[in-house]
C-alpha cells in the first residue's frame, strides 16, 4: 500500500518572544490510502494544530506535508482551494454547517462547487442523507437539528465530493457518549463504503478501537 499522506519534520510555533508556544516539534508520519487513523493525545498536545497543517488550513513553520501527491505546504490560496474542492474534506468538532442552508443544501454544497449536474447532485445528496440516516430531515436547517444530526450532516457533506482524505477533529467532542459512538460507527462504516482515507483526532477509546492505526502525540511530538 502507498502513503496517501506523508508528513515530514513539521514544526509550528505560535506567538513570538518568551511567550512562544511550540505546538508541533518535528512531526513525521505517513497515512496509508484507505485506512482510518486515530490521532490521540491530551488536551493541548497539538492534535488540532497538526490536522490544520495537514489539511492546509494552517501552514507549518518548517517541514512538508504531501497529500495524494500534492505538496500542501507549497500551494497558494487557489491551489489550496482546489485541494479542498477535490481531495480533502473536514469534519469539525463544532459541525461547521452553513446555518442559512438546509441539510440537503449543506450536503450538496461541495457538489455545487464541483459543478456536478443538478440531477446527479440531487441523487448523491439523497444517497448520502440516507447513508447517515437523515433522509427525513433534508429540508431542515442546522439550527433545527440536534448535535448528533448536525454532525451526521457534516459527515455526509464531507463525503459528498468523494474526497481522498477526510480530516475530522474530535467529531464527537460536542456529543453525548451514546450519540458519539453512533457517529463514530457511522464514520468507520463510510470509510469502508466510500473508500476514503480518514484522519480523526479523538479522546474516545471506542474510536481508537475502531481505527486501523493509532498515532499518539504528546507535547507536539509523535510518540514512538
Amino acid at each position, binding site marked *: 500500500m502507498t502513503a496517501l499522506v506523508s508528513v515530514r519534520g513539521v514544526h509550528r510555533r505560535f506567538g513570538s518572544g518568551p511567550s512562544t508556544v511550540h505546538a508541533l516539534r518535528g512531526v513525521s508520519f505517513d497515512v496509508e490510502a484507505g485506512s482510518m487513523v486515530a490521532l490521540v493525545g491530551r488536551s493541548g498536545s497539538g492534535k*488540532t*494544530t497538526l490536522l*490544520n497543517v495537514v489539511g492546509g*488550513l*494552517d*501552514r507549518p513553520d518548517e517541514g512538508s506535508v504531501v497529500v495524494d501527491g500534492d505538496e500542501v505546504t507549497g500551494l497558494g*490560496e*487557489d491551489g489550496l*482551494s*482546489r*485541494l*479542498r*474542492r*477535490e481531495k480533502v*474534506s*473536514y469534519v*469539525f468538532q*463544532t*459541525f*461547521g*454547517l*452553513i*446555518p*442559512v*442552508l438546509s441539510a440537503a*443544501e449543506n450536503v450538496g*454544497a*461541495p457538489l*455545487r*462547487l*464541483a*459543478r456536478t449536474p*443538478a440531477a446527479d447532485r440531487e441523487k448523491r445528496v439523497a444517497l448520502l442523507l440516507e447513508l447517515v440516516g437523515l433522509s427525513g430531515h433534508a429540508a431542515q436547517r*442546522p*439550527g433545527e437539528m440536534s*448535535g448528533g444530526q*448536525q454532525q451526521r450532516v457534516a459527515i455526509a*457533506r464531507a463525503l459528498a*465530493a468523494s474526497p481522498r482524505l477526510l480530516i475530522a477533529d474530535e467529531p464527537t467532542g*460536542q456529543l453525548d457518549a451514546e450519540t458519539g459512538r453512533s457517529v463514530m460507527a457511522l464514520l468507520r462504516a463510510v470509510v469502508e463504503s466510500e473508500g476514503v482515507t480518514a484522519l480523526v483526532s479523538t479522546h474516545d477509546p471506542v474510536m481508537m478501537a475502531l481505527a486501523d492505526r493509532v498515532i499518539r502525540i504528546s507535547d507536539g511530538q509523535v510518540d514512538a
Partner: protein
Amino acid sequence: MRIAAITGLHGASIRGRARADAGPLLLSALVVVLVSLLAGAVPGLMERTADEAVRDGVRRGGDAAKVIVSARFEPDDTLNGRARVPRLAQALDDLRLRAVDELGTDLQRMFRPPVASVISPSLKVTDGSVLRTFRMAYLSGGAGPEVVWSAGSAPAASGDETAEIDWYGPPWLVQVGVSETAAKQFGVRPGALLKLADERGNTRSAQVSGIFRAVDPADPVWAEAPWLLNPAAGADGIGTTRFGGLLSAESLPDARLAFPPDELKRTVSFAPDPAVLTWATAQSLKATVVTLQARSASSSTYDTASTWNTGLDSVLDEVTAQVETARVQASVLLAAIVAGAVLVLLLAADLLVRRRSPALVLARQRGASLTALGLELLAESAVLALAAAGAGCAAAILTTGGVAAGWVAPVLVTAVAAVPAYGILTAAAATRDRRSPANRSARRWARHTAVLRRAAAEATVVLAAGAAIVALHQRGLGSGLPVLAPTLAVLAGAVLLVRLLPPLTGLALRWAVRSRRPLAVFGTAQASAASGRALPVAALVTSVALATFALVTAATVERGLAGGAQETVGADVRVDLTEDTAASADETARRIAAAPGVTGVLTGHVTDSAQIVVDGKLTPARLMIVDSRAYTGTALQPDQALVRSATGALREGMTVEILQTGKPAVRLTASGSAPAIGGSAEVVIVDVAAGLPDPPNTLWVTGPGAVQATDGLTVVSRAELARSRRAAPLVSGLIWLTWAAAAFLLVAGLLGFALTAAAGAPARWLTVSRLRTLGLTPRQGRLVAAGELLPAAAAAAAGGTALGALVAAVTTGPLGLRLLTGQVGDPATALPWAGLAAVAALFLVTAPLLVRAEAALRRRQRLAEVLRVGGPA
C-alpha cells in the same frame, strides 16, 4: 467608590471595555455632537434670520410699512366765508410733537425722524395735450427739505396775511416752486400760471414762484412726495404723468384756501428704521401700533384729533407668517435629522452589545444582577452622551447663541439608554430558560404574540404617517403632527419595505437554488438570512429616503427660485424704460436685438396697478399691453384679455373694464389664463390691438447675451433676481439647512451601513471560512460576503431613493415652498436625477468596499484561527 460598592460598578472594567469598543462609542458620540450642534444651531439661525426677515420685510413694505398720523386743521370758517390762517406750518408742527409724544420714547427709537406734510388732492392740468396731474405739497422734517432756488424765489403769501374769502369767490391763487426737472419737462418759468381743475371741473390756479433744486434728493423727506422732484409716469392712470409744486410755510395757508374746507390735512409719517428693528421689537411695535390705531378710530371724525393709520401690522404679519413657515420648514428637516440620528445610535448600540454579549452573559452567569449590569452600561453611555451633547450644545450656543433642547432630547435619550437597554435584554435572554415551552399551543401562542406585537407597532407607524399626511394636506404646515409628516411617511415606507424584503430574497433564493452557479446560492442564502434583520434595513432605507427627501426639496427650491424669477422678469432681462428713454423705445429695442447673443426682444407697456373693474368692483391689477402672439404664443383679439389671479378676483369669461384717465373705459373679455408672469397677484394681458395707449415702457430680452446687450439701462435680470432672492436671509438659511440635512442623513446612512456590516461581520466571515473549507477561493468568499450586504444596499439604493422622492412629491405642495421661491403658486417637485443616481450608486458601491475592507482586516488570519474561535453553528 461607595457607588461601586453598592451597585457593583467597576470603574476599571468600564474603562477597559470602552477602550476595546472605541469605534462604535466614538461614532455614537460624534452623532450626538453633530445633532446637538445642528439642532442647536437652527433656532439661533432662525432667530437671526427672523430679524433679517423683519428688516427685509419693512424695507420692501415701503410706504405700507409707515405709520401715518393725520388730523384736520382747526376750522377756518367765518360767518360768511373762510379766513386765512397764517400759522398753519406751526399747527402741522404741533401735530408732529403730539404724535411723537403719543408714540412714546420706547417706540420712537424704532422709527426714523418723522416727516410732517400737507399734500393736496390731485388736480388735472388743463392745458396741453399730455395727460398730467398736479399736486401741491408742504414738507417738513428734521432740517429739510433744503432747496436751492435756481430761478425765481421761494413761494410767498399770495396776498393779505389775514384775508377773508367769500364762499363763492374766485379761486384763490397759490404760489408754488417747481423742480428743475419738472420745469424743463413742461416748459414752465417763474411767474407762469398753471391752469388746473379738480375732479368736478372747478378751476384752481397756481403760480410758479421759482425753480428749485434739492440740496439732497436722497433726504427721506422727499420720499413723502417723490413727484415733487421727478415727474412720475403711470400711477394715476394709463398714459398720465404726475408732477407737483412745492409749498412753503408762507404759501401753505393760501393752498388751504384754494381747496374746499378740510381737503388739506396735516399728516405726520413715521418710517420704521430697519437698522434697529428686530423680530422681538417688531412684535411689540405691532401691538402698540394696533392699539394706537384702534384708539384713534374711536374718536370723532369732526374734531382735530389725530387718526393713526398704518399697514405696518400687516407687513409684520406677512413677515411673521413667512418666518413661522420657515421655522416649521426647518422643523420638518430637524425631525428628519433626529430620526436618522436615533436610528444610527440604535445600530451602534446593537453592535456594541453584540460585541460585549459574551462578557455580559458571563457576568450574568457569575451572578451579576441585571440592575448592576444595566447601571454599569448606563454609567458609560451617560458620561459619553452627556459629554457629547454638552460639547455640541456649547458649540451651538457659541456660534448662534441658541440651543434647541426639544430636538436634542430624543437623540440624547437614545444615546444614553440604548446600550443599557439592549445589554439588559441580551443578558436576560442568555440566562432565561432557553427552551421554548413544551406545550405546543403555548409555543404557538408565544409566536403569535410576537408576530402581533410587531404588526401592531408597524400599524401604528403607518397610521401615524397617514394621519400626519392628511393633517398636512388639510391644515397645511403647522407645528405638531404635520411637521412630522415626511419623516413618519418615510418610516412607514421603510417598515413596508422591510416587510417586503424577506419574501423578495426568498424568491431570489428559490431561483438561485435552481441556478448552476454555486456562488449565486451561497450569496443569496446569505442575503436572505440578512434580510430578516429589520432594524438595519429600516434604518438604512429611512436615512437614504430622508436624505433624498432633503435633496429633492433643495432641488425643488432651486428650480422654484429660477421659476419665480422667470415669473417676475418674464425673460432673461427686463428693461424698465424711464420717462426720457421711453421715447426711443423702438430704437433701443432694435439696437438690443442686433447685439450678439440676443435671441429675442419684445416691447410692451406695463402699468403696475392699473384700475380694472370686474364685477363692478375696482380691482387693481398689473396691466401688460403686449404683442400677445409674440409674448404668450396665442394671438388675442382686440376685445380679449388673458387674466391670472392669485385671489380669484379675475376669472376666465369675466368682463374686464380698464379705466383710463380722460377717456372711456375699455371693455374686454377674459378669454384665457395668463402665463405665470409678472410676479403679481392680479395680472391682465391685453394685445396692442385693444387700442389702449401703449407707449412702450418695458422691453423683454432673451438670449445668452441679454445682460451684456442691455448694459447701461435700468434692467432686472432673471439670474440676478434669482440670486438675490436666494441670498435673502430666510431662503439662504433654509437652503443651507436642507443641504446640511441631506449631507447628515447620507453620512448617517453610510455610518449605519458600516455599523450593520460590522455587527454581522463575525458571523459572516465564519460562514465564509466554512465555505472556504469546502473549496471556495478567497475572491469567491468575498463575493458571498458581499451578497449578505446586498439586500440592505439595494433596499437603500432603490427603495430609499424612490421612497424619498415619493414622499417629497406628496408633501412639497403643503410645505409652502412658494414663500421661499417667490412664485405665485407652489413649485412643482423637481427630481434631481443625477443626484439620486449618485446616492443610489454610493450605497451599491459601499457594499463591496465594506467587504474589501473587512477582508483586508482579516487577511492575516488563517482559516484555522477563524474556525477555532467560531462556536457551534
